[in-house]
């Protein structure tokens, strides 16, 4: 399905650990400090040096559920429609979780080869939006957003 991400990307380990270490009960009972959409937007702005962003259907979530089966480990794939040629490729894919204690989740750094498709798993402390931002080689930033519900469950008919 996708390439082995360890070969094609460098995970920002410090950021990933920060997100993983901030454990929030799946039901959201714990009153841990949580990020806001504004904090996530600020983090996005910081990561992209303040570049203008555009929502784009060129950025697609793959395998990201609408309702998480397990908030502690939510699969998230991002695919970006790009030729990945030397003069037109995706340089970075940032993932933000708007409602986590720290909105920065992971950054993938890509080189102009193969397909722009990455996969990982993230922890989501509660129902929130996941934002993906693709930084293109021309400096433009394309984004996608999807709400992922983290529910109590147990009532399907």
């Amino acid at each position: 399905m996708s390439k082995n991400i360890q070969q094609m990307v460098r995970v920002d380990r410090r950021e990933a650990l920060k997100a993983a270490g901030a454990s929030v009960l799946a039901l959201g009972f714990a009153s841990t400090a949580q990020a806001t959409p504004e904090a996530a937007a600020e983090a996005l702005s910081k990561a992209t040096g303040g570049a203008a962003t555009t929502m784009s259907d060129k950025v697609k979530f793959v395998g990201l559920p609408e309702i998480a089966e397990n908030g502690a480990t939510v699969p998230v794939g991002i695919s970006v429609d790009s030729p990945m040629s030397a003069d037109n490729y995706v340089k970075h894919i940032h993932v933000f979780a708007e409602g986590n204690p720290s909105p920065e989740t992971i950054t993938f750094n890509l080189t102009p080869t193969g397909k722009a498709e990455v996969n990982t798993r993230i922890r989501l402390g509660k129902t929130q939006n996941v934002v993906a931002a693709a930084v293109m080689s021309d400096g433009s930033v394309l984004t996608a957003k999807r709400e992922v519900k983290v529910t109590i469950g147990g009532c399907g008919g």
Partner: protein
Amino acid sequence: MLTRRDFMQVTAATAALMGSGANIARAAAGQTITQDDLLNFDSVGNVTLLNFTDIHAQLVPLYFREPSVNLGVGEVHGLPPHLTGEAFLKHFGLTPGTPEAYAFSSVDYANLATQYGRIGGLAHLATLIKAIRAERDGNTLLVDCGDTWQGSYTSLATQGEDMVNAMNALGVDVMVPHWEFTYGADRVQELIEKLNFPFLAGNVIDNEWQEKVFDTTAMFERGGVKIAVVGQAFPYTPVANPRYMIPDWSFGIRPEMVQENIDKARSEGAELVVLASHNGFDVDRKLASIVSGVDVILTGHTHDAIPGVIEVNDTLLVATGSHGKFLGRLDLDVQGGKVKNYNYKLIPVFSDVIQPDPEIQAVVDGIRAPHANVINEKLGTASSLLYRRGNFNGTFDDLICNAIIEERDTQISMSPGFRWGATVIPGQDITVDDVYTQTSITYPNVYRSEMTGETIKLILEDVADNLFNPDPFYQQGGDMVRVGGMGYRIDINKTIGNRISDMTLLSSGETIEPAKTYVVGGWASVNEGTVGPPIYDLLANHIRKKKVVDIEPNTSIKVVGA
């Protein structure tokens, strides 16, 4: 007793709805309806799809009342299946009091039930299936959209095997799953080995390698047409049911995988692509607008009985109800990889006028006979109508909620918003069989615990969002969790966290405070290690003590925005 005149009114209405094959009403008042009337159909084309879904292990005829409340929010507000009662009858041109009004709606249910009798029964369903197969020899494909192995005493006692044997005998061609998974991963694999036909679940992958776990597609040839059936399991099985029973499998709607399977089937020469789905009707309606190349979606899960085809772009959606109450017949004229014409009828299985098929009756009797002493025990009598379906409450759930409060000494009780479970009409005995049609699950323990008012609200809000999220892809397809001992107000058009208000403890009339603690009992917890007596034993004991069950209409839930 069904009259021929009544039935003809209905078929005329149905035919008008389809816009093809209009039946001319033959006035013959006073004659009883016959099996032939039910089978009456103007066949079309080269393929006949027969479909039932959500039979919930019901082998013998029963009563099943359709919901009187089934609200839709957002784009689907006021569209089928979110029409009930008089509005439903009006929309589909059905006359109150007719057999079809009885079959499809809740209007005057208890009265009409005494007139038109029980519905369903596998041997009765089999008679219809065999007659249509004989008429359309070599053209017929029988699709079961799942929730087949769970819902009765015998299915629980045999861990689903009774239904596997019954469906093999019936000659089902292909099935998809949901509640099947509640027997656990190992048992599911064991039972698949015993099936004579494919078990499809194209949207299930393993957590470790993200590889497909089950077959995704089955190919058939009927009437010279190459047919691909792509299968879709209930996408939220590990959320709505215990994940610990299937820890290695991941589900989800996965539209991109559905599209991939459709494209693959087309590239392998499929002229007709059918999605057999346990997504739920609204999810499938949205899915049909996203994917391309699927001719028919046979829907399931949400138990909607829609007497016509719903078209979305080039896709025909069919919804055949639940509990063996209906058989869907969709005739298709497939030419050059396209559906050129079709005719559809959702046939109510009126048990009293159908001669049961001897072969399947013998299978059913063979399954039930060893358990006869247990399941036929009379526990009490219903003096009011006991039913489950409805968005907020049902009288059978009110009975269950009362039983939990009394038997476990709690202030508040909760019962899951399942949509399966038979109806008991006034004057009818309540047997152990009836108790199990309401409670037969593999995680039955009734917990007793303390919860804060805040937690109770959180639960209600969470479930309400599963039901009333305006985006169908976020809906799980059950009804609202039922509550006993408390009342509340719900505004269905608000967002999560803002729908529920005015939570009141009924015993004292006091407001339920967020910080205060309450004793709550409930069943069907998806958490592993839940402790307490099984719900079926608790409920049976309760009815034995009561002897006569009379449930007053529930007025403690105020619904706003319907």
